[in-house]
């Protein structure tokens, strides 16, 4: 075997929107939108700098349903750049960009090889001397949903001394949270005789096995709070003895983060704000040159609970912190109207929103025993929560008026049993803060009842 190196990436999802963000200023939206492309450009850059012999991409390069012209054009640019350096690309198509989907009419350049709907193998060569070094086998999704076990089509050439790499977009051993396309088992992959399985489809980076290598590189840019942590691709260096060394290369420009902050012992709004700002500074310093999108969940018990329940306060806090952030990156010169590429010196931290999981300084057991309206309400809620059908019935009755609208109906149907339980719990908290407060009988301005704005 001869030594060589390649880059393995997957799930580029170029130009797909970020979900769960609202209240985003236009400039920031431009940067966010650019981020998948920036990650892609970074991928090209790494490929060139590391002088890899070829690049392997395991599907879902873009979302055909988005029908984004921009993605197609930028993709061509990227391929052309690799072509200038003589680096070939081997790619397969996944469930989001199957062969049947619409794409740019221009033909792929010669150095980009796209596998067809039947498993086929090609031989890759080393750039320095043109010697063949690896056999790549791949299958592209012909349609958006493929349920066959594609792994069974991969057969190692008997007697071949070359390093065998299998490109597969699918779900190994039924990983949760993703559609079960092209399902196969780890054993299938291990028994195939291939040396490296370059997988795609699961967005969380994971190495399932080291011998043979079965690798999900994860996507190159997280797109929601469900995809947190650094994202990128793997640089794989194969030595002459056939052993491979993988190093993770970070590509993302936007990092998603969830953080918890306790309100225990925090007595005033100012103290809370200061505490938040400290955290924001920490995050900013941790990721210079990147945008961190963070959501803070307030937990614990404290005197600020009642204040936080009033949605207006939380919304204002959010707005103020966001305003400061905007001022900061405007000052850094990113306020210009023509921001296409990300070029940050200092990091930016954008608050996606706040989640409230604080509890009242409330003796819950005391209220349950209390002979009061709130006590009655709590007892009622407790009885209901004990049985899930009762929870269903309660929530469905309460939200009956929403079913008039198609979109709202869809959101209603999206509520799973856990979400409904959570609604009941939060409704209890709301009732408690409404009825239990020491508000004088004639209060000048009743607090607003909504929870803090932002992402849910």
């Amino acid at each position, binding site marked *: 075997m001869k030594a060589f190196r390649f880059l393995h990436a997957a799930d580029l999802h170029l130009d797909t929107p970020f979900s769960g963000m609202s209240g985003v200023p236009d400039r920031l939206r431009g940067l966010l939108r650019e981020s998948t492309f920036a990650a892609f450009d970074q991928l090209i850059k790494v490929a060139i700098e590391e002088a890899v012999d070829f690049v392997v991409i395991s599907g879902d390069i873009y979302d055909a349903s988005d029908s984004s012209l921009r993605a197609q054009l930028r993709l061509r640019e990227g391929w052309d750049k690799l072509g200038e350096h003589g680096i070939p690309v081997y790619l397969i198509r996944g469930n989001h960009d199957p062969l049947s989907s619409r794409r740019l009419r221009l033909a792929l350049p010669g150095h980009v090889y796209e596998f067809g709907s039947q498993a086929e193998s090609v031989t890759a060569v080393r750039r320095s001397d043109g010697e063949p070094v690896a056999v790549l086998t791949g299958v592209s999704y012909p349609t958006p949903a493929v349920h066959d076990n594609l792994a069974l089509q991969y057969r190692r050439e008997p007697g071949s001394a070359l390093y065998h790499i299998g490109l597969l977009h699918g779900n190994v051993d039924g990983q949760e949270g993703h559609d079960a396309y092209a399902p196969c088992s780890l054993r299938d992959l291990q028994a195939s005789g291939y040396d490296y399985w370059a997988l795609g489809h699961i967005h969380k980076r994971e190495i399932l096995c080291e011998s043979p290598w079965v690798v999900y590189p994860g996507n190159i840019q997280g797109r929601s709070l469900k995809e947190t942590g650094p994202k990128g691709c793997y640089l794989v260096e194969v030595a002459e003895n056939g052993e491979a060394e993988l190093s993770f290369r970070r590509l993302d420009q936007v990092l998603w983060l969830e953080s918890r902050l306790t309100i225990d012992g925090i007595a005033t709004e100012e103290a809370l704000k200061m505490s938040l700002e400290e955290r924001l500074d920490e995050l900013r310093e941790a990721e210079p040159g990147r945008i961190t999108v963070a959501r803070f969940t307030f937990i614990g018990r404290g005197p600020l609970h009642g204040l936080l329940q009033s949605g207006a306060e939380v919304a204002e806090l959010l707005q103020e912190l966001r305003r400061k952030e905007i001022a900061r990156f405007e000052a850094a010169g990113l306020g210009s109207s023509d921001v296409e590429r990300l070029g940050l010196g200092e990091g930016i931290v954008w608050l996606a929103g706040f989640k409230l999981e604080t509890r009242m300084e409330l003796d819950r057991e005391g209220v349950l025993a209390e002979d009061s309206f709130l006590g009655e309400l709590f007892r009622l809620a407790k009885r209901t929560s004990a049985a899930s059908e009762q929870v269903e019935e*309660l929530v469905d009755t309460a939200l009956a008026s929403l079913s008039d609208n198609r979109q709202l109906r869809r959101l209603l149907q999206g509520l799973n049993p856990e979400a409904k339980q959570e609604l009941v719990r939060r409704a209890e908290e709301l009732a408690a803060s409404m009825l239990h407060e020491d508000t004088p009988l004639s209060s000048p301005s009743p607090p607003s009842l909504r929870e803090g704005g932002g992402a849910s």
Partner: protein
Amino acid sequence: MKLERMQISGFGRLNGLDVELPGQVTVLYGPNEAGKSTLLGFVRAMLFGIPTRAQAAERYEPLRGGAHGGALTILGDDGTRWMIERYAQPPEGLNLPGTRGDRLRITRSDVRGEVQEVSQEEMQRELLGGLSKAMFKQLFAVTLTELQEVGALQSEELSRYLFHAGIGGGAAVLRGEKRLVQEMDKLYRPRGRTQEIAQLLQAVERLEREAETAKALLPRYNDVLEELERLAAQLAEALGQAAAVRDELAAAGRELSRREAAFDELAGEWEAWLSERSLSPDLSPEAASDVFRLAEQGREWLARVEGLAAKMAALRAENERFEQECLAYGDHASPNQAAAVLRAALAQLDSALDMKSRQDQLSAQLFPLEEEGRRLDDRLQQMLESEQALLAEADAADGEELLRLDAACERREALERELRQVELMLFAGLDEVKRNELEEILQTTEESELRERLEQSEQDLRQAEALLGQLQEKRGRLLQEQESLAARCQRDDLVQQLEEQRAALRDRFDQYAVMAVCHELIGRARRVYEEERQPAVLQAASGYFAEMTGGTYRRIVMKMGTQELMAEHAELGPLESSLLSRGTAEQLYLSMRLALSEAVSGQTPLPLLLDDLFVNFDEGRLEGALSVLRTVADRQQILMMTCHEHVVRHVQKLLPAANIVRM
């Protein structure tokens, strides 16, 4: 439990006050600003804590500064005596436990006299039965404000207000529910268009539509590319055609000019030739040959005429000669002498005959001469024949023509040479087919036709060029469109905006959902009250109400499921609460509150604090209310506040055991 003594170091306007409350009923009597509500606040503060600065209105910072707080002595139902000392700012010299916030000490001394310090929680649990501050406030203080609200409410609200009076914390529930519904309405209303959720839905739908059209960019781009490809092919074809036509045109043009030149030359020569011969220069060759023919004929005729004229002249001359001769034979010249002359002539004839014989002789000599002549004739004939042959060969009528033909022949050779050259020029570079075509065109068409064709070709060329121009323009437009499509897809971020709006919608939906579930829970809890608790409350309240109204009203009834209370008039039957007079409504309210406090206090009756309620009560009503309070006082301690003398007098009359404290 029972309040025994209030020692106020400093609380609001009260300062250094020591009030003892020995009996079941105590009336605090003092002018308006005397601080009666402050006392209420003091009791609550002592039991539950002095409110923080954040709740300044209830904190009652001492107006004169100094110590803030005091001590409250309470007698428990089991005879235990409790003393609560609480200070936000202790008086000098007094040392109490506590560092932040309140300084607090609670001591309990039981019947045996043993003193024990207890904690707040213990006190609340034992003394108050676990009652919370909010509950206490809601249940055991009835203020004028609450009562007056009865008059302020609209009819449906009044009914609900009265209903909720029977629920502990009912007012808060009512208020909270109202706020809740307001907030919910702001977010969403079925079929509403201005609420937040409705707006977001509209925005989402609009963005979805726009995003759909934006999705059309990619197929449009592909279509543009396809059209460009097709156009390119069309253009190439059109250009080829145009080139061919142009070549043809050039060739035809060249030939035409060549021919014209040749023609001009020939025409020039012709004219010269004609003018040489003094002929009109306008004559065509046919006419010229006609002319020649006629000239020939004319010459012939002329020759003949000349001949004949000569002959005639000769004859005449002969005649004259003869005459002369004849006359010569006579002597005088008279015309009639001709005969004589003739005779003379005859004589001559004889001589002529002589001559004849001579001639015969000569003719003998003539024969060889004739042969010679014939020989010469033959020769002439031969010459003529060969001339004819030559002429025939040359296909010429006579020598002149021959010469002409010769010239023409030379001309032809020259022309043929030229033709070869021209052919080379014309046909160089053209293939066989085109060659033949072109030749055919040149051969089969006359000059005028060629001209026509030339015009036609020029027209075709113009059309082809126009078409070319159009195609190029179209191509330019398509290229521009391609660029602008590429640029546009860079700019628009509709899909991201759509996602953001969807996120905002989900967020608002979530908020609404929580509120809606809360609303539902409240409704259900209230139903529990309605079904399980209200009946008891209503029963007690009915008793009080009947007594307060002196029997005018018998009881209070509830319409299930509607939160509406009705008062059953002794004669008129059940009346809706909105139909009651204000005074009666107030009585109803008070009855409900009293019944509630009775229902809730259960085993440990707590003191009832009434804050100047009877301001608007007329005498009858006042007496009714006081007689009810007398009954209540059997069970609970009553602390009343008033600034009206007549109230005090009535109390003294109806509740003689009451303790009047003047402030």
